[in-house]
């Protein structure tokens, strides 16, 4: 092989660089997301129940929010959401969800950061003030 003195070290450097993220993060598992629901409003609730059961909220909250924003902004302009249990809620992120879940960093961000999803909700919608 010609130039093996250059090619082989080059290959070794290449492999090291490509696998860098793997061995650099070896043994450092990211902290398990731990969304907290200990906000003042939720603490006062007798029955700690979101608009839908917890499992459904985990998997479909983004779909519900997408549906809400279309209903409210683009029509049919119905601003009330009837949950499966018959309770009626205001279709609103800022004036609905965040009134109970007023701890964005401890609640929303927990899973979003873990999964590297960056919803752009907060570019416009105002996050409630949190105590540091």
């Amino acid at each position, binding site marked *: 092989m010609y130039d093996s003195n250059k090619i082989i070290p080059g290959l070794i450097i290449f492999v090291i660089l490509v696998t860098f993220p793997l061995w650099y993060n070896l043994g450092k598992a990211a902290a398990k997301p731990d969304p907290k629901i200990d906000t003042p409003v939720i603490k006062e609730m007798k029955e700690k129940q979101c608009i839908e059961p917890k499992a459904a909220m985990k998997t479909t909250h983004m779909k519900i929010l997408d549906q809400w*924003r279309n209903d409210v*902004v*683009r*029509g049919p*302009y119905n*601003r009330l959401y009837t949950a499966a249990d018959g309770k009626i809620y205001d279709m609103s992120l*800022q*004036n609905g969800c965040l009134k109970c879940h007023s701890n964005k960093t401890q609640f929303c961000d927990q899973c979003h950061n873990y999964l590297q999803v960056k919803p*752009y909700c907060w*570019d*416009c*919608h*105002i996050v*409630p003030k949190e105590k540091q």
Partner: protein
Amino acid sequence: MGINRREFLRIAGIASLWGLGGKTAFEILKPGALEAQMRAPLTQGKKWAMVIDTRKFKSQADFQRCIEACNKTHNIPKVDLKRQEIKWIWQEHYENAFPDDQHQFLPEGLEHKPFLVLCNHCTNPPCVRVCPTQATFKRPDGIVMMDYHRCIGCRFCMAGCPYGSRSFNWGDPRRFIKEPSNRDYPTRSKGVVEKCNFCEERIAKGLYPACVEASNGALIFGDLENPNSELRKMLKENYSIRRKPSLGTQPNVYYLV
């Protein structure tokens, strides 16, 4: 068994006569009552419009009251750079607000009088026609609405609007909002166009637009399709003009001069 065709037609005929007669009887006995009961929900089958009584705007304070109310309600940033300003409702000089309508024998003072201008929520809105993503659209109740989620910031609508009612966010508007004045309403983000929304979020709650509320009766808001509304009464009793009527956009903001 059942009914034969002749019987069916007879019943159907009588029933439809009944229906027609019933509505007419209602109209004669209680005009408007049935119409009111049959009226669709707030946001359907109506046409929101505004009358601006320019005779009631005497000082700068009268203008600022309305403008401030809007700015506070919608968290509108106060941008220092003039050409990057965000405007929902603002003042315009007569010659800019009504360029069609100038001659040299105008009443004294009119030429230099400021006028309150905002989005006209046109019946035939050019901004809606040019929007490539349908981020701006006409609601059934006449409001020309923005869906900021869908706006790609191409600014075609700004070119299309003959009234300059649209502003573009060249940067993140939050740079200019230290503390949002209304925490129940969102701000906008970088790269979207924004404009007056006739306070649709307040109308949905049955409230009047913020500028109307602050105007002490100089602005009148109502349904153009309701002949008994205060708005229609004002239009019936006063001579009104609209901005750039020759363009055929059919503005829904009327000015009493």
